[in-house]
């Protein structure tokens, strides 16, 4: 490995590669030196594996030049990996790289790693306690690192330590420790804080409007709003001071926020409100204090405007807080799935304990009508379990001994006991919640323009307000000073870019939540946008279009032989085999509760078939060549076998005691709804391609049955990614290619596609490996994902249009553009109301997305209505 050119490849240790773009950069840098198809980057292990000839020093230099420290790793494992296995092994790291296209969770609290434990610490009163507690935790066997956050009294422990030992270690030094509260508690705290803030905003609103409305009514009803020296002057001065008090009480946060932002050389919404209302108040006070210094026609006061604007903006914020709460209802529903207690069986006793006290390995009971508490494996009992809220799969699934159950699923019929396999933040439900929360925070590329604009918006508006003021001052009608003030204030108030900033995140939050309800987990904003833009969809066959598990399709017996007996004999023979087709036959016999015998003189011929003696009968099972080898005439069933092959089944000939007995067709069944789902995709104008390693004839037979025109067959697993790459290269400008596969095996191809969809059933790998995970096995989830994506993007565009139009039209009108034409100048109070309503409108439009129903759900709903 020390020579410059290594024929075997190399394993290089790197540092600091943390995202998919790093992977691409490294591969790109290595492209002139080696075959990049043979390069895989494992971000978790921080290694670059090159499985082809490469100039090692040059490769190290190329990686270092990118800024990643790189060293050759003298790792025997790399050399020991057999060629055939390497593809499979390298698939997982590729899958892991996808993770990085999603927002990173950098916080220890929410990494969701199996080895991270979060504890709430009580009794820590000073910073000195921190090191004591950290030392105590670190002394527990299995702890890799422990760090305490004094600010929120939590400790993060990494490693593989026993939870009780950790709690005991903290308690022994005089503090208290409990497992950190879950997402549900966080959500509750968040809702509480939001409610308190909502009430505070309403109080602010009432106080400000309590002053502003009477003042405004006074003006509208013909009351004098001009200041004349004398008694009215003192009255206005008093009103001005009262207004100042109200402004400080109801809108104090605008002024402090504005001042702090100013000191930090940044400008925000508060800047506009504070500048606008402040200018109106200062002008009015100047008029009230020194009316003689102002031309007679400009002695107008605007105290009512300041109070009204603050009142209306508080109202707008309150409405926004309420509407925002609704956008996270999907998360709330997911959190509600988690039961608060679990029934644990310890030392023969059953008792209900808080969910956070359940430990890995605990035996739990779930009774009919109860929810599964944690992820586990059924030990005893049988029941139908409804996993619809978790997977989108509407039909309850039967669970029996050995089956896996997931937290949050509803146990419908029987009582079962199960062993806790994953608890707390490691359960699939907790991971789904974490993933949905993250995706809800991500922004699709569509929102970037709005971000760029809103980042520079406030200073631009300040400049526009000054320009408007100067124009009114120099060219406006009398009273010029008053007009100048009104125009500048109105521009400042109406221009708040809240609606622009909210347009994208609000829609994403609802869209990702809607997708989660349909069992579609979207990992990042880019995927959310791109899914709806896909022009080509490549579907893996096995496990995606088909069940992925062969089963006995048909049995044809000759000369009136008993089909069941044939199945029993074949299954007894195949008991000794591990071939997938043989296992399908055994499973089919077990499903029929047939009693199997043990084979004698079992013999297997690779690629042909098996033989053995069952209960004294010599049984042969295999392909046509196997029959020929054993001098058995298979011709009476060859026509039937060909027909079965055309239906994409594998025909297995069977002979007993030297005579042809029948043919057993084993096939990987097509999922019942694949055809309908593919039709939905094609109706949406998508080009659908089937990708498989099967022989062309068999693949075409499946494709015909499910309505797919294009087939790419006989592709080796390691070549699937290349096929996707070729399709992307051949695609027209801007056309996107999506890949759908069942998780781990297809990971490189999923990573290569513009959008990778993993079909999974809630497994960790499926959740982690693709841009979008379809929790249920059905391809309808894919169509749902695309429909949700399109609906969300449409909603974002509506919001952006609304926000842009509002600001683009609102600012010129506020500046007085209509005055020369119609003699109309917008009131600052109206601007305040309009500004508040713009955010409310955007949030409400995003909430409209909550009513979205996929075409399949709508059709089902219509059918149910008709039936009713």
């Amino acid at each position: 490995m020390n020579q410059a050119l290594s024929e075997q490849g190399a394993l290089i240790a790197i540092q600091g590669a943390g995202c998919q773009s790093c992977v691409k950069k490294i591969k790109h840098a290595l492209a002139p030196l080696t075959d990049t198809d043979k390069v895989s980057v494992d971000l978790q292990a921080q290694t670059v594996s090159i499985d082809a000839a490469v100039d090692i020093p040059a490769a190290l230099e190329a990686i270092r030049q990118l800024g990643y420290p790189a060293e050759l790793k003298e790792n025997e494992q790399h050399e020991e990996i057999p060629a055939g296995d390497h593809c499979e092994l390298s698939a997982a790291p590729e899958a892991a790289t996808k993770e990085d296209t999603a927002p990173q969770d950098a916080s220890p609290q929410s990494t969701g790693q199996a080895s991270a434990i979060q504890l709430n610490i009580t009794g820590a009163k000073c910073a000195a306690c921190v090191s004591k507690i950290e030392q105590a935790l670190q002394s527990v066997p299995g702890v890799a690192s422990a760090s305490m956050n004094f600010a929120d009294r939590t400790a993060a422990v990494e490693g593989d330590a026993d939870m009780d030992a950790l709690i005991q270690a903290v308690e022994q030094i005089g503090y208290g420790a409990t497992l950190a509260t879950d997402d549900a508690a966080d959500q509750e705290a968040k809702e509480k804080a939001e409610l308190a803030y909502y009430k505070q905003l309403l109080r602010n609103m009432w106080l400000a409007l309590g002053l502003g409305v009477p003042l405004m009514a006074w003006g509208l009803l013909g009351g004098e709003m001009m200041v004349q020296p004398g008694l009215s002057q003192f009255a206005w001065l008093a009103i001005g001071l009262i207004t100042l008090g109200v402004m400080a009480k109801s809108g104090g946060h605008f002024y402090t926020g504005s001042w702090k932002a100013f000191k930090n050389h940044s400008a925000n919404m508060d800047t506009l409100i504070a500048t606008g209302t402040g200018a109106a108040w200062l002008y009015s006070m100047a008029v009230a204090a020194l009316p003689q210094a102002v031309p007679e026609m400009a002695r107008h006061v605007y105290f009512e405007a300041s109070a009204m604007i603050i009142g209306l903006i508080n109202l707008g914020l309150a409405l926004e807080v309420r509407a925002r709460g609704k956008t996270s209802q999907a998360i709330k529903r997911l959190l509600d799935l988690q039961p608060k207690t679990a029934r644990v069986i310890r030392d023969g006793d059953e008792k209900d304990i808080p969910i956070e006290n359940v430990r890995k390995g605990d035996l739990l009971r779930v009774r009919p009508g109860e929810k599964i508490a944690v992820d586990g494996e059924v030990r005893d009992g049988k029941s139908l379990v409804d996993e619809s809220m978790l997977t989108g799969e509407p039909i309850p699934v039967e669970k029996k001994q050995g089956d896996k159950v997931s937290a949050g699923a509803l146990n419908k019929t029987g009582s079962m006991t199960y062993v806790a396999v994953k608890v707390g933040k490691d359960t699939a439900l907790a991971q789904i919640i974490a993933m949905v929360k993250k995706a809800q925070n991500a922004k699709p590329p569509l929102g970037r323009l709005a971000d760029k604009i809103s980042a520079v918006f406030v200073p631009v508006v300040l400049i526009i307000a000054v320009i408007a003021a100067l124009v009114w001052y120099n060219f406006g009608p009398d009273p010029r000073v008053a007009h100048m003030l009104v125009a500048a204030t109105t521009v400042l108030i109406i221009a708040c870019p809240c609606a622009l900033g909210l347009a994208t995140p609000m829609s994403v939050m609802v869209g990702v939540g809607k997708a989660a309800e349909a069992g579609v987990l979207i990992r990042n904003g880019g995927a959310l946008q791109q899914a709806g833009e896909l022009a080509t969809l490549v579907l893996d066959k096995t496990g995606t279009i088909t069940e992925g598990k062969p089963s006995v399709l048909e049995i044809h017996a000759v000369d009136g032989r008993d089909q069941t007996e044939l199945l029993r004999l074949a299954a007894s023979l195949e008991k000794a085999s591990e071939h997938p087709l043989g296992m399908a036959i055994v499973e089919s016999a077990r499903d029929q509760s047939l009693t199997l015998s043990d084979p004698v003189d079992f013999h297997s011929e690779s690629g042909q078939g098996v033989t053995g003696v069952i209960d004294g009968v010599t049984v042969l099972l295999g392909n046509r060549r196997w029959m020929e080898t054993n001098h058995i005439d298979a011709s009476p069933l060859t026509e039937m076998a060909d027909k079965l092959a055309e239906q994409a089944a594998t025909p297995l000939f069977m002979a007993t005691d030297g005579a042809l007995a029948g043919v057993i067709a084993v096939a990987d069944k097509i999922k019942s709804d694949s055809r309908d789902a593919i039709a939905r995709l094609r109706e949406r104008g998508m080009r659908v391609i089937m990708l498989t390693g099967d022989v062309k004839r068999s693949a075409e037979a499946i494709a015909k049955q499910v309505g797919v025109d294009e087939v790419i067959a006989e592709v080796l697993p390691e070549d699937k990614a290349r096929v996707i790459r070729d399709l992307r290269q051949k695609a027209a400008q801007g056309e996107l290619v999506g890949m759908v596969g069942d998780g781990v095996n297809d990971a490189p191809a999923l990573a290569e596609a513009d959008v990778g969809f993993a079909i999974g059933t809630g497994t960790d790998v499926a959740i982690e490996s693709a841009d979008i995970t379809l929790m249920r096995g059905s391809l309808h989830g894919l169509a749902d994902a695309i429909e949700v994506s399109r609906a969300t993007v449409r909603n974002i565009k509506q919001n952006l249009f609304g926000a842009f139009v509002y600001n683009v039209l609102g600012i010129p009108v506020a500046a007085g553009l209509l005055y020369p034409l119609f003699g109309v100048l917008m009131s600052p109070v109206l601007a305040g109301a309009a500004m508040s309503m713009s955010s409310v409108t955007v949030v409400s439009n995003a909430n409209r997305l909550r009513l979205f129903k996929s075409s399949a759900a709508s059709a089902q709903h219509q059918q149910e209505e008709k039936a009713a």
Partner: protein
Amino acid sequence: MSILVNLLGLGAIAFVIYWFWLWRPQNAAHSTGGAIEITVADGVYSPNHIEIPAGESATLRFLRKDPSPCAAMVIFDGLNISEELPVGHAKDIRIQTQEKGVYKFNCQMNMYQGSLKVV
């Protein structure tokens, strides 16, 4: 008087341009081994200019005091990080970046703004 008002207006425009766009931060908060604490209140991140060395990880500890929805999220767009900030509780965000440069961070509505300089 008219000239004075116009000069004041032009001066105000020049000031806005300088103060919000041309000014460059002189002092940034540095990582000294522990977490860098950032308070989220009154429309600003304090401090709002952070400097960390390239190739090392740093922890930013956000303490949100402002209950307004605007402050609820912090987004590091260039680093693919977006995190919800709980009110009244610290939230640690670990940054590990190799590439030197300035990474902006902001709230969802882009009203709270800060910058992270990797040197």
